[in-house]
């Protein structure tokens, strides 16, 4: 599973992209966040403000209950501020 981080989530994790293999118990976005958040102090910091974290699965905005599976591209970022 390919994970991307943008904006301050990229800065806090210290990485723009990583490939991970979460256990089978990780089935949705919320579960993936819970698992990623304990991978390093940087990850913990990035996911600490849970309400400020948004996700996309395979380049579509996703909600905490949306499923994730091996092979997915999952991105985490703050609320968008373009325009």
């Amino acid at each position, binding site marked *: 599973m390919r994970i991307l981080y*943008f904006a301050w989530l990229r800065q806090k994790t210290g990485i723009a992209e990583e490939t991970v293999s979460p256990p089978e118990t990780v089935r949705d976005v919320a579960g993936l966040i819970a698992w990623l958040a304990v991978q390093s102090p940087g990850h913990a910091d990035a996911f600490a403000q849970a309400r400020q974290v948004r996700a996309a699965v395979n380049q579509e905005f996703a909600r905490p209950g949306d499923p994730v599976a091996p092979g997915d591209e999952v*991105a985490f970022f703050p609320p968008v501020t373009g325009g």
Partner: protein
Amino acid sequence: MEPRIRVQEEPFDAAAEMAALSEGRTDVGGLASFIGLCRADDGLAALVLEHYPGMTERAIGRIVAEAVERWPLTGCTVIHRVGRIRPGEGIVLVLAASAHRAAALESCGFLIDWLKTRAPFWKREEFADGDDRWVEARDTDDAAAARWDAPRP
């Protein structure tokens, strides 16, 4: 009608883009445009825009497709810059052309409102004193975008 969508570092040429939607045509009754520019509030030195390559083009394409479905457009252009943008420079250009003015004006407003809330861009502000900070999303932008959620009467 082939929408023109671009994500680029270079400044855009609004006049050339407007001409592309209207010159040599006699079916365009209204051309609405919106340009978002970088202000120099509070000693801002530059905005740095980050995006999600791939998803960005997809998200903008979907927003434009929604506009094309809702309004009878003869032309539509969205150009969003990324990278470092100085005060006074354009950040985003939205153009909507139609036989009728209401369609052009409404769809232009719709496009910028949804772009601000549904396309994966993030702005970081760099200040003259060396400080920098990520711009936070604003409730007013969400409210503006939500106006378009319901089908039009």
